[in-house]
């Protein structure tokens, strides 16, 4: 089931005018910001389908940027986010794409800052609910509604067992988990949605595991 909560239907509390094109877009932007871990210096935002056709009227542009600034869906500064971004030194480029995507509300966000880069694809499926479908070319499914751990690692035997053993030790229950890899033995990504809050020591222990190159934590 795509929708799990009564508050997916009655909610979110948000700045208008559109739950999918404004609130959902802001949420995708905010997940990108969380995954990037800091304010980027440049963002290239590519819009597809209905997003590309109506982003001006729906405020999708300022909503995504508000998300990149870590603003909530009900933050009244949202409509001014483009000006705020400029003041903070975030350069934003919008591209309306012609390509047809699986879902009509699709956005690709490329973030740059220092030596770091991130590419994320998200879809806004209605009522403010979103799914992240791609991260740095890895296909994945992430709602952004639950605490999650993303583990970037080398594709080796035993790594899944090592990661889940750590979670088990701290009595953290896994709600959803998936693993994808670029190629056999290459870079791989583990996405683990959990029920509990993830403490710093868990992240630290996971980071020290062999063949793990990066841990990203997403709070609720």
């Amino acid at each position, binding site marked *: 089931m795509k929708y799990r909560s009564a508050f997916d239907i*009655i909610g979110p509390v948000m700045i208008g005018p*559109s739950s999918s094109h404004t609130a959902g877009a802001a949420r995708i932007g905010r997940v990108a910001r969380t995954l990037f871990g800091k304010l980027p210096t440049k963002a290239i935002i590519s819009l597809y*389908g209905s997003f590309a056709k109506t982003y001006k009227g729906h405020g999708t542009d300022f909503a995504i940027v508000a998300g990149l600034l870590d603003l909530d869906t009900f933050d009244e500064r949202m409509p001014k986010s483009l000006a705020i971004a400029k003041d903070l030194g975030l350069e934003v480029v919008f591209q309306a794409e012609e390509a047809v995507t699986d879902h*009509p509300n699709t956005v690709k966000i490329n973030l740059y800052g220092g030596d770091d880069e991130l590419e994320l694809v998200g879809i806004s499926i209605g009522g403010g609910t979103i799914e992240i479908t791609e991260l740095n070319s890895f296909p994945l499914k992430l709602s952004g509604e639950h605490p999650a751990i993303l583990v970037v690692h080398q594709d080796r035997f035993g790594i899944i067992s090592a990661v889940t053993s750590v979670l088990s030790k701290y009595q953290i229950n896994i709600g959803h988990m998936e693993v994808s890899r670029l190629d056999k033995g290459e870079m791989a990504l583990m996405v683990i949605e959990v029920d509990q809050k993830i403490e710093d020591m868990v992240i630290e222990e996971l980071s020290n595991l062999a063949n793990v190159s990066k841990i990203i934590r997403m709070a609720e």
Partner: protein
Amino acid sequence: MFRNVAELVQLAETNQVKIAEIMIRQEIEVSGLTREEVIAKMDKNLTVMEQAVERGLNGVHSHTGLTGGDAVLIQNYIKSGKALGGTVLLDAVSKAVATNEVNAAMGVICATPTAGSAGVVPGTLFAVKEKLLPTREEMIEFLFTAAAFGFVVANNASISGAAGGCQAEVGSASGMAAAAIVELAGGSAQQAAEAMAITLKNMLGLVCDPVAGLVEVPCVKRNAMGASNAITAADMALAGVTSRIPCDEVIHAMFLIGQSMPSSLRETAEGGLAATPTGRRLEQEIFGSGNTVKLKNLIRS
């Protein structure tokens, strides 16, 4: 967890509780929150709805000037005593419009189930409130009943205009409101399902064709009609009228109709009212020729 309306009605009947209670119990289970926390969360959303309606009834206008002020006009007309439609009906229309005028003006609203359709559920709630005089708790229950029906539509069809047209947004909102009105008025779970079916049947095929890609024309007035549709269907169900096509089948029909709708009529501003000469002229006036500068100036001012 209920998967469709039939299961939802059966759960309520078997446990001899309201549909709202089934939704509350499920939310407690899924979220891990306590009952008090779940209720408090919905109470907050209810407060946002009250504030949005109040702001709209005081008169609000969007940045583009396309919408605003109609909620006030309707309220004044009700006060004149000349209204032909019932007071509750017109009050619901006015309060639905008020909410969506605030939404169009980029104010704070609560999506029910979406922002573009955010007027229907609170509009009808605050209008029937005047007649049924519910407690705060019953008003919160109203929102959980609406959520339960919206939950089924969202998981089995769609609540996105880009995926399923306006029938998925204002159509879903109206069905949710109709069912919640029935339960608040003391109707049975089955009668709530009948009201949802009757409402949605009359919203099937409604396209999403927003002028200039804004959530203003015709969205605000569609919320008005959605609210009146909900109240009419709720009254019909409470009178004992049933839907020949079961609610779940109506929802599935809505899904299939959405699937076969061309993209030009699913929130792309390429067809329908958006493509009329006046729709195109307004788009040109607001955005110029593919230039975003004007909108950004409007937003920053």
